[in-house]
């Protein structure tokens, strides 16, 4: 019993941290569900104890045939009337929350397109579209509307700390409204199995002060600062990276892979799975499929020494 209690305590404490936690109360939508969760959990604990208590008592008690009518009333009230009221009430409450957390508009519109296995992120700004990938920054306290699509297979967009998930379905556009309420770097995940590297399809959802966010977005909208004759860019160009990747402000305009214009400004590499460091970048280029199996990007194991260093230095300069 004691070990159970301590286990419960460990679990409880473990649940209070974690960047993917539903109960982190980092978003308005998540908070609504959090309330629901605690009420349901408490209710479930009470009901479970009562039912199992009744069963245990009934199993141990002596035969009482004279209590048949009582047993039948127990079925009628406990098994019929009470459940109808409880689940009916929960249904209404659930619907009210549903009505509150769905919205068709937001202060900010972000289009996210699920790809195998990364996220194309496009901010809808009055000045036009701003494309980035695998990292979503959001202003604190403002409702963001996500317009979700997918090209290849079904994915699902989920930032547990901010709110619920929504599938991204080829041929359809779905929407999800999220209103961040706490600053921080919250984890985002693909929740619908999409084959291969589904487990490694992550992103960071970073909640910022609105003014910081505006500055970041303005910077993100700028083209990259690439020096004429940068040796790293020369390698990038020679190896044909631009056929798939775009670096705005250069001749690299490939639409297939993630936009790299401000690659080094992102926290993570490889769709939210590795720290953005020169070392991981070098490995990513040479040992791509050990880093993330099955992905379409080819590995460049022959790219070594000075050329690799130049390329990594160049990529890490794309802030």
């Amino acid at each position, binding site marked *: 019993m004691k070990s159970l209690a301590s286990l419960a305590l460990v679990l409880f404490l473990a649940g209070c941290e974690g960047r993917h936690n539903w109960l982190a109360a980092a978003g308005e939508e998540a908070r609504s569900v959090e309330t629901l969760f605690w009420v349901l959990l408490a209710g479930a604990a009470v009901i479970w104890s009562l039912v199992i208590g009744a069963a245990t008592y009934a199993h141990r008690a002596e035969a009482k045939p004279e209590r048949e*009518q009582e047993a*039948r009333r127990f*079925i*009628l009230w406990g098994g019929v009337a009470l459940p*109808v009221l409880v689940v*009916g009430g929960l*249904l*209404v409450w659930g*619907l*009210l929350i*549903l*009505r509150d957390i769905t919205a*068709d508009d937001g202060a900010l519109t972000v289009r996210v397109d699920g790809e195998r296995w990364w996220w194309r992120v496009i901010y809808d700004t009055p000045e036009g579209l701003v494309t980035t990938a695998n990292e979503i920054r959001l202003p604190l306290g403002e409702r963001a509307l996500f317009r979700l699509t997918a090209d290849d297979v079904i994915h699902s967009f989920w930032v547990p700390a901010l709110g619920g998930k929504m599938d991204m379905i080829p041929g359809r556009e779905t929407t999800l409204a999220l209103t961040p309420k706490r600053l921080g770097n919250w984890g985002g995940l693909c929740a619908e199995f999409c084959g291969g590297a589904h487990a490694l399809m992550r992103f960071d959802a970073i909640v910022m002060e609105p003014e910081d966010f505006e500055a970041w977005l303005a910077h993100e909208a700028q083209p990259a600062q690439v020096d004429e004759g940068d040796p790293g860019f020369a390698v990038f160009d020679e190896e044909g990276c631009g056929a798939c990747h775009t670096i705005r402000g250069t001749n690299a305009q490939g639409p297939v892979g993630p936009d790299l214009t401000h690659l080094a400004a992102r926290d993570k590499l490889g769709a939210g799975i590795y720290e953005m460091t020169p070392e991981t970048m070098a490995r990513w280029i040479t040992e791509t499929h050990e880093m993330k199996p099955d992905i379409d990007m080819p590995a460049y194991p022959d790219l070594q020494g000075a050329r690799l260093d130049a390329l990594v230095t160049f990529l890490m300069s794309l802030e």
Partner: protein
Amino acid sequence: MARSRDRKTVPPGDAPRVIDQGSVWILVAAPSIWAAHFLLSYWVAAIWCAKLGRGTSLAEPRWIIAGLGGLCIAAIIGLAVLAIRRYGGVFVIFEEITESSERARDRFVGHLALLLCVLSAVAILFTVIPGMVLGEC
């Protein structure tokens, strides 16, 4: 309603009696009405929202669904009256009908049908709730 005990002279036949005394259709009738109402409600709302787009008001479908629900519950009440007659008219909901006779079998079917009527009516009420709470597609 004719009582089965008067039926000594009727040859049993081998078909399941579908319509008259001894019929078992009454067992699936009430849940089938629920199913019909459920599917109709789903179709009304799905076609309404698919053809008119998101954000459309649900005022009309709401009342269509509730109206259909009312009709269905009325039909179920009708069934329940039939069921109570077959059951015997005594509302002892926990009676165990274990006698081996046609009349007992008939009463059992009536009892079961009555319970299914209640369950189906509750389920229909549950189906009407969403339209009342949600205002638009």
